[in-house]
């Protein structure tokens, strides 16, 4: 049952309603609701342990919330597996880069196309006939991503040998290879220097502009969040404390308290 509606730009792509997530007695997320609109860059911010990554994991079906509902492209869902989320157009990158270290940049990004490959195992085994044609087509798409992310020079380099900033870029490339409708980025700029951060910002904005991808990202660097995102959700101890435009969120007293501490 895969019949999904097409969502127009600016309409609701994903809706999270009253979601709560517990691990035993530990409450990771409590009664959080927000929406992600098609085509926007949506940031999820909050102090350490606020439940941001858990939230992403709920969205792409890795965790199953005890309460609440998620509506994606107009369809409610409760339990779902990550590969189903992937086939429905949700791609993500991880806080700690999760690439195949021994494989080249090219191969890592090709992996992102595997869901789109339809030829039979038999042909793939011999790299012949339909499998060959398919591979050429996918390779072309991957080359476009390589061009887009300006990583031609590391095409044939095993990713384990690459500096961290480039690994992050390759990971973004793999997510883009899935042609996602919704792209989840978990701290895309963690551990980067200023120049790498600026490059990454540019790639994220270009992705939104060129491919029309909706992006939800977790980020700690407030400057980056304010520059990049259209709307921001702020979590603290698993509870939503603010939601709105970057400027509105920045002026919110609760947010200031959460980040700077409260005078007692």
């Amino acid at each position: 049952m895969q019949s999904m509606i097409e969502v127009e730009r600016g309409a609701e792509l994903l809706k999270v309603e009253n979601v709560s997530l517990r691990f035993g007695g530990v409450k990771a997320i409590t009664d959080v609701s927000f929406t992600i609109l098609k085509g926007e860059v949506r940031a999820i911010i909050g102090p350490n342990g606020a439940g941001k990554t858990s939230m992403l994991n709920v969205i792409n079906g890795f965790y199953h919330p005890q309460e609440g509902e998620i509506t994606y492209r107009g369809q409610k869902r409760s339990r779902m597996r990550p590969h189903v989320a992937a086939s429905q157009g949700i791609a993500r990158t991880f806080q700690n880069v999760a690439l195949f270290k021994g494989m080249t940049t090219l191969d890592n990004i090709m992996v992102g196309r595997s869901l789109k490959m339809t030829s039979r195992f038999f042909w793939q085994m011999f790299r012949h006939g339909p499998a060959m044609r398919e591979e050429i087509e996918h390779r072309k798409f991957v080359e476009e991503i390589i061009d887009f992310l300006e990583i031609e020079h590391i095409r044939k380099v095993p990713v384990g040998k690459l500096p961290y900033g480039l690994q992050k870029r390759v990971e973004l490339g793999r997510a883009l290879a899935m042609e996602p409708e919704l792209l989840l980025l978990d701290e895309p700029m963690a551990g980067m220097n200023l120049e790498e951060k600026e490059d990454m910002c540019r790639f994220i904005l270009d992705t939104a502009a060129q491919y029309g991808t909706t992006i939800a990202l977790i980020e700690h660097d407030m400057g980056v969040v304010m520059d990049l995102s259209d709307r921001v959700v702020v979590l603290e101890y698993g509870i939503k404390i603010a939601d709105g435009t970057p400027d509105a969120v920045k002026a919110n007293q609760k947010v200031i308290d959460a980040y700077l501490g409260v005078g007692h």
Partner: protein
Amino acid sequence: MTDIATAELDTFPKLLAHQARVRPLRPAMRHKDLGIWRQWTWAEMAMTVRHYALGLMAHGVAAGDKVAIIGNNRPKLYWSMMTVQSIGAVPVPVYADAVAEEMAYVLAHAEVRFACVQDQEQVDKILSVADQIAGLMLVFYDEPRGLRDYDPSRIQAIDSVIDQGAALMLADPEAVKRLDAAIEGGTGSDLSVILYTSGTTGRSKGVMLSAGGCINAARDTVAFDNLTDRDNVIAYLPLAWVGDHYLNYAQALVAGFTINCPESPETAADDRREVGTTFAFAPPRVYESMLTRIMIRMEDAGWLKRKMFHYYMGVAKKWGAKVLDQKPVPLLARLNYALGEMLVYGPLKNVLGMTKVRVAYTAGEAIGPELFSFYRSIGLNLKQLYGQTEAFLYVTAQADGAIRPDCVGPATPNVRIRIAGDGEVLYQSPGQFIGYFKDAEKTAETMTEDGYIRTGDAGFFEKDGQLRIIDRAKDVGKLKNGALYAPKYIENKLKFFPNIREVVAFGQGEDCITCFINIDLTAVGNWAERNTISYGSYQELAGHPEVYAMIAAHVAEVNRQLAEEPMMAQSQVHRFLILHKELDADDGELTRTQKVRRSFIAERYAPLVAALYNGAEEADISTEVTFEDGRKGVISARVKVMDAKTYPITSLQHAA
């Protein structure tokens, strides 16, 4: 095969048409795009340029207009140059990494009316300073990414201009006639291109070159090095630099060989390997970084490979240059060298993308003798040339078989050289410039009364007729005691150590010579790794006591060598310091061609220079730095100053 075109072919558009007639199906240009090499034959390229020219004429580009060309080495930018010249307009290539203000100066000075650029980055730069460029009408771009929402009255895609031109070719025979008339009407005395110098001293100047001069010079060197249409070059040098315009653009149009454009500047090394270039040019630092990479990788190789490498490097050192120069070599040594070629040199050249290279040049800076002999010993025909933008590159070049590392060769064909009384090198060359654009005063300063051009370099001829350059003529000075002081000479000696990237020497009118040193992060970083020295940043590594000790040993070694040279014995370095940051063109410390701007550095780091001479052990410094996006920040540091070991002067002949 000698179809080096006749004298009637005195402009580049005529040459292009000629090549399309003579070798229509030979590849003229290749470009790696999306991982695949695309190729254009001479006929295809000539046709595209005609379409492009009609399109540009329809957009108002007219004879005499100046058109800026900005970006990496890409076919469409080379075509832009050919197209602009076809119309009778003048291309003005500009360094692509120039920041917006620098670019604004050049574009305004050149009175640019149009610009053909690579991508959004360049478009943004130009539009941000458009108000300073009075006559700017329209910018044409190659890569559309990110430019969709820009105002089409200010920017246009090169692709769509070419398409428009193709349509016009069918629809408007009058326009085609006008284009043909423009091409036919061009003569050798026309202004062909304006190349802005990198500005080692102050503002860059626009060097005007004539079409006929460019082509005559290129014909001479094409014959000199026997270049044919079977040759291949990789175009990775900045378009705005005379080296690219000469070695790639002019020589390709004269000889009909293939220009290969890399996928991106970072992939040039791999791409060179894929196309198998036959004619290569690189500044010494490129050869140096290649050698550094090899040595680092050999350190990590297994012991058998390492043993084999070092043994055969010994063999190469002894016999390689002789084999290359076809001098007598004993049979056994020749056989052993051949085995080495199979086991070591061949694979090495393959990794470097140098397997098919017949002629390789280096120029721009002095090259270390060890470095130079290394490449020659493994069988690469590396030669030196000496030249200038004002000469349209070549002044001297070494002929096959007569190579030495410390000289730059005799005058190239049809070039006349004279040494002035003060040691300055003067020349006349077939490609020599018409003058500086809008700067008759500077032009007059550069010419002698009898029509020779001053190079600004001091040098002399060795006994075998090769020219030896020692320094910039105006930089050659004297110490307080009157001894000769040639800063570049000392700097180069130090820079021959792989650990040292850049040196700035001081001493004019002082008691002794001192210097700033920049370490090479790749080489020293690797050394630190092997010696388990941890560091967090360039600054920390540069200030590490063991790094200081290592550099001190290098300085002492140079002093020992200097002590043995009669002219230079007084030039020993007495004190030095290692700078806390890398000298950078963005901060104005280097020129865009990576040459040190000595006086600017002396001013900027005045407290450090003072510390070199007042005996202080350390000094504080804070400097403004420019980030890649043009924002500014401040770096502060406390820098150690160290005394160097000096040697007694061994030669009997004391400098006065």
